């Protein structure tokens, strides 16, 4: 197969995701949830799920619908499933968040909100997993980066299953009452499978291909990424299988998590080595802003790995887990996603606008749709704010944390404007901007 088509709703996924991110950041800035409230409390759960599902999972699903076909050179199994999946994820998250707010006494809601919200989310993720899974299945044997995605898809199934069980426990149903200890022991598995397996492992795999493409680095060696994949799969398997067995027998969870953590560190170290190798062997010396900022996000991942190991070694893990999770969610994952959106949004906009007229009239470059010098300041603010916010959490300074997140939010708003300008072709100079035959793209939906 040569070339893949544009997925119509990818831009819509990105827009919905950014709206959730901005909302979550605004809630943190006004002091809603951790650290002003309990880290496991309903208000914190609202913010955590807004970021992990509304922002990170939604944006990742959209990116995978466009990128998995590129990875495996096969068409997406069912493009018609992508809009229903977005609707289910958005509606499910809204109902789930209402359930958390009711649980925290913010309003007098019915107890079925949590299980119904979780059910809708599970249905949405099932559509995503089935669509991407069938696409991958058609391309066996899988290339290296696609194996990471397959591992990530398995992990979102585990995360969603645990989330569904939690909703039954938290809403006080008779079924949930059979597992009174599930929340205590199951939350680490839910979080590891979600943040570590689904979000981080998938992002690692995709970044192998993206970094090689953008840096013009050779990535044909079959050994590239193998150790990171094997160690990562071992970490997830030990963490998940060991965790479930420990849950069942109600003992040994810490040992399973310790072994999984060691394997995860090995995976991250191998991944870091691979990225450095790609960087050193790159042909393209002058890196674009998206690649440079992706590398900064990777530095956050390295910092998170070191912070996690230090917290474990000093026995301060449970008291500072909030800082670690924030650094992973913002410094690493959000930073990486924003850096890549800065390339993906103009690239998809270019294909939609200028692809059909190419060869008939002169066209601008993707680089002409962006203004890197203007965007650089937003990325600097974003990473500085994210790292400052992590430090504020480590120093237990709640007000400082909120101020730092306000800076992160300002940067998010600035980058959102950059994405809108790219969709509007606002930075493309005349006369190339709209040549004969080219149509102005819609802001939130692609023509395909």
């Amino acid at each position, binding site marked *: 197969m040569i070339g893949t088509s544009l997925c119509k709703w990818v831009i819509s996924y990105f827009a919905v995701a950014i709206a959730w991110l901005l909302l979550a950041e605004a809630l943190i800035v006004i002091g809603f949830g951790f650290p002003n409230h309990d880290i496991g409390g309903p208000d914190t759960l609202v913010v955590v799920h807004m970021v992990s599902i509304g922002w990170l999972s939604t944006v990742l699903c959209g990116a995978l619908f466009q990128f998995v076909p590129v990875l495996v050179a096969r068409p997406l199994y069912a493009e018609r499933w992508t809009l229903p999946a977005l609707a289910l994820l958005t509606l499910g998250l809204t109902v789930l968040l209402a359930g958390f707010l009711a649980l925290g006494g913010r309003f007098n809601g019915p107890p079925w909100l949590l299980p119904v919200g979780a059910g809708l989310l599970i249905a949405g993720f099932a559509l995503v997993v089935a669509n991407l899974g069938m696409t991958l299945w058609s391309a066996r044997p899988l290339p290296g980066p696609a194996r990471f995605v397959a591992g990530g898809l398995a992990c979102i199934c585990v995360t969603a299953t645990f989330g569904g069980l939690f909703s039954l426990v938290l809403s006080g149903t008779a079924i949930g009452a059979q597992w009174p200890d599930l929340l205590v022991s199951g939350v680490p598995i839910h979080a590891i499978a979600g943040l570590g397996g689904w979000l981080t492992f998938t992002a690692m795999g995709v970044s192998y291909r993206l970094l090689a493409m953008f840096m013009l680095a050779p990535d044909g060696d079959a050994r590239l990424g193998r150790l990171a994949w094997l160690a990562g799969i071992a970490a997830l398997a030990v963490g998940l299988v060991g965790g479930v067995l420990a849950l069942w027998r109600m003992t040994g969870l810490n040992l399973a998590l310790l072994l999984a953590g060691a394997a995860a560190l090995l995976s991250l170290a191998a991944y870091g080595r691979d990225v450095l190798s790609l960087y050193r062997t790159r042909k393209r010396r002058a890196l674009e802003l998206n690649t440079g900022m992706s590398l900064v996000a990777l530095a956050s991942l390295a910092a998170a790995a070191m912070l996690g190991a230090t917290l474990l070694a000093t026995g301060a893990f449970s008291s500072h887990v909030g800082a670690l999770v924030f650094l992973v969610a913002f410094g690493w994952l959000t930073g990486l996603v924003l850096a890549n959106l800065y390339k993906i949004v103009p690239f998809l906009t270019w294909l939609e606008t200028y*692809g059909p007229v190419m*060869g008939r009239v002169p066209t601008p470059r993707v680089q002409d749709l962006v203004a890197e010098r203007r965007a650089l300041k937003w990325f600097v603010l974003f990473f500085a704010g994210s790292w400052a916010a992590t430090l504020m959490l480590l120093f237990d300074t709640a007000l400082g944390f909120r101020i730092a997140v306000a800076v992160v939010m300002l940067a998010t708003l600035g980058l959102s404007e950059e994405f809108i300008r790219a969709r509007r072709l606002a930075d493309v100079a005349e006369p190339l901007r709209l040549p004969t035959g080219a149509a102005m793209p819609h802001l939130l939906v692609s023509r395909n």
Partner: protein
Amino acid sequence: MTFNDEDLVARIKQALKVVIDPELGHNIVDLGFIYDVQVDDGAAHITMTATTRGCPAASFLKDGVASSARLVPGVDSVDVTMTFEPPWQPSMISPGVRSSLGFAEVN
């Protein structure tokens, strides 16, 4: 109007320079994407490649090559073959474009 085939091939290659790789930002001739151009009695046969097989830009590049070649006087029909053998390598880029992409001397 008749053209010498060699002259026509040169004109086609020149015309193909309107087609750019959107990501690398240079025309596909200087990037080394055009592997072969042959003309046989007004019928142009073009063999080309792209950086990544599954890239959504690949089909647009192929269509763009056909469109631009068809506009060249003397070309009656165009047949474009996309191949990934041999795979495209950065070493196929022309020296002038290499330096603008920031290629190091050692590479």
